């Protein structure tokens, strides 16, 4: 399952993307030189520190943030050969929702409080699938049913604030899946869901992926979900992708110190409850003073002068496993240091 | 409805085309803009000019004024006065029909006149104790308690005029006014849409008195089949409507616009000396109780400025100390002219000093509802200030103004514009309590005027009284003003006497 045919077409290619917010004094590089490509039918996972730019990057693919804040882009995002960043905004609506759809991280704020769930779901169906109202309604019920919402008939008549957090999230998911997009951007889609429902959702995504060849950009903190779902994983830290590998490879031999730190922090069912959970020491530097060299240098136990001064190149450790670090070779020493 | 009033722009539309009678080349309907909804069409009870103007077309009195202000028979045929001057025997014209088809007889006249005597405040005041009686079907008598020279003038008075109604109406009418409008006049009442218009139609059976049309007398032809008096309260709207031809005539157009209107070829303007702007001082209470201070007030006034500011166009005002129309041969007088238009602030200051005036507040009450009164008050205030008075204007809506004006405790001065009266006794300044003036000199003076043996004596007596008013500083005329009525220039045979008279008027297409 993880061996997506390498020869399949590249659907989305992000090249050297930088997304800069207008800060108070300077530009804030929320995304700082990201290269990422997603093939048709590939499920790409993104993990990373909170605030590392995952949501911004993914929303940039649909150019959603520029309606709200002052944003500057650099680089390019090629989707089906077109550079999205160069398209006129007006033509974005043909891509959005139809070819690329997105599940937002915060479901309540993302649902329109004055329309019923059914109304909001039908809207997208009627828009892109040219369905009649009745058809759209039926399809909505079907979709909600797939996400495991109890009594979807009632749900479509409810308003978002009448739903529980998990239900809201499932509505978002159903809405994003409605048009069977070529690319699904799922920004922490299962945070509010319990394991059983989560399972159901992940299955649903996999099924669509298999059936329609839908590509997925899956952003999550839930490493187990990631392990289960994704073909390959990108690890982001402070606006950059620091490691990239096939899922099994990444979990088996994480190369970047940050990745390793991350994997060690998970509370498992066998973690000793009396002991403190391991953490990566230090705090993420704010976007106002991003380190010059390796972005992780402020927290890295292995960091030396070079790390602080020079940005590390992306190195291919094994085929398909890339890491952006000066020290990836010193695996043994690092392991000691982290533990 | 009023919507059909033919403005020139829509004369082609169907609804207005029907209003034109193609045979004679004159309009079938005259649209006449009046300033307010008439309170009633019962001329007995209301002294409203608008009511009288409209009612004049429907009803007729026994006598009316001709253009020279002489009482002239209308429904009366002739009259005789007994030697002692107490009994008037009046013969009625025969064959006059009311609009309901009944013939007018002495019973109708007696009933109407008796009611008029009872309910009309003017008649009430001047003819108190008089009695009308029927002699035969076409003859009545009027018996007055004292012989006075002005009985016929009162009978012919244009405001609250003594209209003749059918007996049944006159006798059954409540004091609130009649509800059935039946008279003998050239027009019949047709429709009254409250707040919008009063519509009159030609009385086909009308029998006109003979003679050249003059004032309210002479031949009346009802030349235009329909008269529509449209209530247009706003000045600017009347002006605009006249310019567009929406209205054939408009009353009470601000004199300020004379020049502008005169330039417009489609309009013609009728003017008439119509009244005087008067200043009344509170002689009974407050600071102005002091005659010296009142004199100081008179000394400070510059009537030219006052009139210029309140009337606007200089063609429309004249300066004259008399309380009557200058052309009124009998009563116009310049007694007291040394007190008039003194424009002498220094003298005023000196008088004030003498009187020991201590900057007490002097209140001028006024109302913005009458622009000329309001403006004049402001100028007077400014002139008084220049002369060292502490003058303050209190401005109220009309009703409140009337309340303050009537209570000597609440004002020191006020200005009103008063239409010309015909007799000194009718002057409000002589009415006790009008502005608080109630001195023996005044009542003596009135007695002298009414009881005077000859017209000259009466004039003389009035001269003295007018002089007294100035000397006492009770009131002052500020100036005289004219009114204008603007009509389309296509209107013929229109007369602007006391009110605009339209019964002979036509407008050619």
């Amino acid at each position: 399952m993880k061996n997506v045919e390498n020869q399949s077409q590249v659907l989305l290619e992000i090249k050297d993307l930088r997304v800069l917010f207008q800060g108070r004094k300077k530009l804030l590089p929320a995304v700082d030189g990201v290269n990422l490509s997603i093939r048709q039918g590939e499920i790409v996972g993104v993990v990373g520190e909170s605030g590392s730019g995952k949501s911004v990057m993914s929303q940039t693919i649909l150019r959603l943030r520029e309606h709200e804040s002052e944003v500057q882009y650099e680089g390019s995002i090629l989707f089906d050969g077109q550079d999205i960043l160069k398209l006129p905004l007006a033509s974005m609506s043909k891509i959005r929702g139809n070819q690329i759809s997105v599940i937002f991280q915060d479901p309540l704020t993302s649902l329109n409080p004055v329309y019923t769930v059914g109304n909001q779901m039908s809207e997208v169906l009627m828009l892109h699938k040219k369905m009649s109202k009745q058809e759209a309604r039926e399809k909505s019920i079907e979709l909600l049913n797939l996400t495991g919402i109890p009594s979807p008939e009632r749900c479509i008549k409810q308003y978002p604030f009448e739903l529980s957090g998990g239900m809201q999230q499932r509505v978002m998911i159903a809405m994003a899946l409605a048009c069977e997009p070529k690319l699904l951007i799922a920004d922490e889609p299962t945070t509010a869901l319990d394991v059983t429902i989560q399972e159901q959702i992940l299955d649903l995504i996999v099924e669509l992926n298999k059936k329609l060849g839908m590509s997925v950009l899956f952003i999550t903190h839930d490493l187990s979900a990631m392990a289960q779902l994704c073909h390959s994983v990108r690890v982001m830290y402070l606006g950059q992708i620091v490691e990239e590998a096939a899922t099994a490879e990444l979990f088996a031999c994480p190369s970047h110190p940050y990745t390793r730190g991350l994997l060690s922090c998970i509370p498992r069912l066998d973690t000793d409850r009396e002991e403190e959970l391991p953490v990566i020491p230090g705090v993420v530097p704010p976007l106002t003073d991003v380190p010059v060299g390796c972005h992780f240098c402020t927290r890295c136990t292995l960091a030396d002068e070079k790390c602080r001064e020079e940005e590390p190149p992306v190195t291919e450790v094994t085929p398909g496993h890339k890491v952006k670090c000066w020290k990836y070779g010193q695996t043994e020493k690092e392991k000691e240091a982290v533990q | 409805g009023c919507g059909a009033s033919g403005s020139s722009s829509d004369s082609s539309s169907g609804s207005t085309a029907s209003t034109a009678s193609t045979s004679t080349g004159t309009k079938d309907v005259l649209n006449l803009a009046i300033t307010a909804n008439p309170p009633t069409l019962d001329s007995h009870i209301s002294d409203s000019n608008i009511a009288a103007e409209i009612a004049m077309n429907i009803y007729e009195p026994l006598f009316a004024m001709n253009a020279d202000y002489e009482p002239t028979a209308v429904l009366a045929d002739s009259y005789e006065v007994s030697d002692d001057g107490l009994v008037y025997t009046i013969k009625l014209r025969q064959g006059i029909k009311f609009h309901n088809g009944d013939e007018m007889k002495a019973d109708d006249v007696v009933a109407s006149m008796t009611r008029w005597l009872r309910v009309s405040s003017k008649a009430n005041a001047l003819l108190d104790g008089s009695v009308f009686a029927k002699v035969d079907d076409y003859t009545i008598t009027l018996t007055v308690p004292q012989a006075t020279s002005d009985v016929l003038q009162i009978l012919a008075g244009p405001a609250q005029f003594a209209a003749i109604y059918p007996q049944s109406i006159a006798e059954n009418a409540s004091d609130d006014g009649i509800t059935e409008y039946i008279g003998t006049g050239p027009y019949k009442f047709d429709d009254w849409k409250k707040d919008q218009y009063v519509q009159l139609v030609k009385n086909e059976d009308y029998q006109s008195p003979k003679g050249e049309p003059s004032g309210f007398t002479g031949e009346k032809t009802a030349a235009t089949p329909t008269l529509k008096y449209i209530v247009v309260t706003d000045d600017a709207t009347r002006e605009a409507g006249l310019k567009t031809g929406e209205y054939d005539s408009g009353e009470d157009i601000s004199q300020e616009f004379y020049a502008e209107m005169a330039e417009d070829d489609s309009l013609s303007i009728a003017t008439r000396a119509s009244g005087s702007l008067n200043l009344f001082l509170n002689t009974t209470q407050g600071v102005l109780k002091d005659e010296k201070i009142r004199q100081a007030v008179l000394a400070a006034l510059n009537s030219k400025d006052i009139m210029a500011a309140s009337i606007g166009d200089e063609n429309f005002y004249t300066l004259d100390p008399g309380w009557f129309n200058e052309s009124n041969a009998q009563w116009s007088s310049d007694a007291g002219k040394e007190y008039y238009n003194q424009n002498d602030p220094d003298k005023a200051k000196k008088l004030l000093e003498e009187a020991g005036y201590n900057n007490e507040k002097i209140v001028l009450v006024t109302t913005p509802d009458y622009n000329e009164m309001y403006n004049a008050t402001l100028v007077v205030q400014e002139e008084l200030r220049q002369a060292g008075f502490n003058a303050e204007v209190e401005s109220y809506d009309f009703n409140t103004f009337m309340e303050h004006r009537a209570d000597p405790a609440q004002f020191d001065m006020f200005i009103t514009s008063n239409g010309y009266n015909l007799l000194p006794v009718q002057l409000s300044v002589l009415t006790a309590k009008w502005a608080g003036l109630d001195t023996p000199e005044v009542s003596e003076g009135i007695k002298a005027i009414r009881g005077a043996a000859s017209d000259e004596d009466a004039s003389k007596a009035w001269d003295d009284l007018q002089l007294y008013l100035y000397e006492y500083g009770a009131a002052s005329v500020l100036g005289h003003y004219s009114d204008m009525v603007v009509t389309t220039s296509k209107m013929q045979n229109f007369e602007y006497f006391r009110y605009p008279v339209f019964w002979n008027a036509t407008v050619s297409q």
Partner: protein
Amino acid sequence: MPSYILKRILSLIPVFFVMSVVIFLVVYLIPGGPAASLLGMEASQDQINALNTELGFNRPFLVQYGDWVMNVLRGDWGTSYLLKQPVLQAIGEHFAPTMSLAVCAEIFTLIFSIPFGILAAYKHGTTVDTVTVSVSMVGVAIPGFLLSMFLMLLFGVTLKWLPVAGYAAMSEGFGQHLRYLLLPAISLGVAQAAYITRMTRSSMMDVLYMGYIRTARAKGVRESAVVFKHMLKNAAPTILTAIGQSFGGLITGTIVTETLFNIPGLGMLIISSINQRDVFVIQGVVLFVTLVYVLVNLVVDLTYGLVDPRIQMGKK
């Protein structure tokens, strides 16, 4: 919901009671009874007093009030001194023109204000916004009578496109009716349009950046639908209030316009009855307008619940 409507309608009873006291008090306080106007300028104080006494205006407050209330409860709202007709009839006759005028003005208002308000909000900070705001400020700041006179002079006197003044009832044909209403409706509508434009703009601005707008865009909804469907409905409560208010305001706010354009509506009725102290008419009209207001606001309040389900007026 039905119980809420019922409650609101029941709450009319105390409202009317309170309003009747207030309005009666106000009318009682205003100096001068109807006599001064009935008798005219030359009347003496004695005459005025006598007539006022006769008409019952010198009786104690409570007696007068009781009398009036009893009559009103019996369905007799009194008789106008001025028009010599029952107050209810007078109101009935004057209501139609005002209503027509208000509806026309409201239509005019809405045609201009909502689109421009939305546009200004959507393009805030740009020239379009600045121009819209400035123009609407002119609309707000220009005194009604000046605007009316200007329109009258321009379209009536100079261009002769429309009649300068007057009123044609609906029975005289709809076209005619409209011709007469057009200018007054515009002059009445301009200030309201300006107001609603500004209101629309500001309430739209508040929802421009909501998360669900982002979602709508992400769904591929066209900008126009984003604006009209997703933003507008969220901004609607304030806009609806403004519209309700402007409509209510049109009912009473017609004094200047009706006088200038000579439309025999409620505005004219109320002004002449105040001027002439036609007390029963004043009281009747105010009470009537209160009723209209309460109803308009009831409708507005009910629509809140329809446009924004979070607002539940009926909820305890």
